[in-house]
């Protein structure tokens, strides 16, 4: 049955296949990065500045050149990856852990619970990010915990609301009512019956948010939260390269590409998971 407009002409390829490919690719990249990392680390200290050797073009010694303080870009990029990905994933997952139950409960319980929960969420939205970060860094000082807290405060609301919107419409359906007559506890209905429905959208939003969070972390480190200079970190590298936008644009391109690739990976992972929850797999013609 061949159709042009809405269905790919061939039978759908197995999704598993592409997933294995991703894992394989990821593995190779990881191994390569790790070995390169050890190699580069032996050669370059990522925090050691060398003013006379700054802004060098790529060479065999410095494959991607040096930055504005003469540090090896590749080494910093490799080292920064661990920091950046670690922090941002931690922050993202915390935001999810808080946002999803919040939205589930608000959407499922409705009524006063919903109203109060949503006003709380609105309250969080009214605060500018910078205020949150400044207050946190002032009150609690720097540190990963506070960084994560700041990002969670900024980010959780979107997940809560997104989840709530799906739950609101989904919990009208007969199968949720049946689940209730089956005596399922609210918690169980939320986790077992509603969670699969929200997974798709949440994953999409979360995987794209990863990029924004990396950038947010770097801007938070300016006011004292997060990684302090000269810790290599992609977002900070991107920001630091800002003055060289015209003279050495590649300084921005490298961390930019690194972030893009991480977001891409997260996105593929998200799409894979989404497809798992999308039991119907494909659009009908």
């Amino acid at each position: 049955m061949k159709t042009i407009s809405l269905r790919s002409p061939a039978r759908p390829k197995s999704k598993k296949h592409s997933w294995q490919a991703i894992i394989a690719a990821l593995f190779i990249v990881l191994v390569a990065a790790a070995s390169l990392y050890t190699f580069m680390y032996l050669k370059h200290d990522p925090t050691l500045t060398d003013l006379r050797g700054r802004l060098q073009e790529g060479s065999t010694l410095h494959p991607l050149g040096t930055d504005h303080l003469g540090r090896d870009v590749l080494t910093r990029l490799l080292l920064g990856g661990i920091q950046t990905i670690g922090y941002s994933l931690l922050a993202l997952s915390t935001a999810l852990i808080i946002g999803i139950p919040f939205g589930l409960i608000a959407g499922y319980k409705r009524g006063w619970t919903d109203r109060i929960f949503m006003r709380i969420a609105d309250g969080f939205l009214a605060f500018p990010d910078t205020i949150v970060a400044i207050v946190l860094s002032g009150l609690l000082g720097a540190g990963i915990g506070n960084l994560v807290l700041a990002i969670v405060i900024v980010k959780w609301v979107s997940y809560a609301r997104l989840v709530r919107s799906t739950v609101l419409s989904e919990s009208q359906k007969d199968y949720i009512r049946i689940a209730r007559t089956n005596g399922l506890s609210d918690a169980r209905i939320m986790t077992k019956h509603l969670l699969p429905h929200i997974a798709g959208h949440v994953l999409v939003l979360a995987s794209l948010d990863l990029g924004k969070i990396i950038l947010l972390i770097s801007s938070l480190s300016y006011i004292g939260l997060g990684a302090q200079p000269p810790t290599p970190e992609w977002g900070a590298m991107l920001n630091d390269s800002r003055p060289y936008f015209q003279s050495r644009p590649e300084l921005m391109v490298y961390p930019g590409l690194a972030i893009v690739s991480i977001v891409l990976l997260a996105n593929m992972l998200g799409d894979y998971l989404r497809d798992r929850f999308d039991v119907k797999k494909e659009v009908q013609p």
Partner: protein
Amino acid sequence: MILSIEELSIAGRERTIVDNVSLAVREGEFMALVGQSGSGKSLLSQAIGQLLPPNLHAAGRILFEGSNLLERKPKEMRALRGSRISYIFQDYQGAFTPFRSIGAHFNEYQKIHGEKSSTVRRNRAAEALESVGLDPILLRRYPFQLSGGQLQRASIALSLLLSPRLLIADEATTALDSVSAHRVLELLARKQKETGCAILFITHDWRHVRRYANRLSVMQEGRIVESGGKHRILDHPQHEYTRKLIEAAPILGRSLRSGIEEETR
């Protein structure tokens, strides 16, 4: 021969669900398709309009008015659907878009098939609902505000609206009480007489088969085990399964046996 299905197979990734089925529906005929639950009746009927779920794939030939539907482009297919071939699906709730009122469905359906005047559209929608025993006031309601039987009748009314050449009714009366079902089937018969359309009627109800069908086919596990004239099959079933099926027909109380009445016309 308005519809002729030849060696149709429907397969998913792992298994073949409908296996090499052939079936024909003549012009103006009331063709009943009965059979085991899960034997593939619905899928067979969906294949005709290229409406199979995307994970399933049909092979073979489906000739409608002489041309193979399986080879048609989506655009050409669309020209047939709704106007020449119309469907009543088994899932009557799914027939309606949840956020549009029943009336909106009637209106849209007529509009895209060329009815320009909105008063005509409205009147015809009201008439159609009345013909299946529903109050036209239901036009203003949303699908979830109707009872199961009301929804099913609304979807029947909708699919009869434009007098198609072929009507595919997939268990169209399951949610109807016998009075309403009777009324709906009478309407179908009348329509058929008026317009001469062919009906492919999937059902489990022997009474309906007995009363309305011209011919019938019996399906079991993805195959058609027997087809033929109503009398032949009902009274002289050949296949073991058919025999069992007829035997199992529920009977009511003192005398009434639902499928097989005293005289056979």
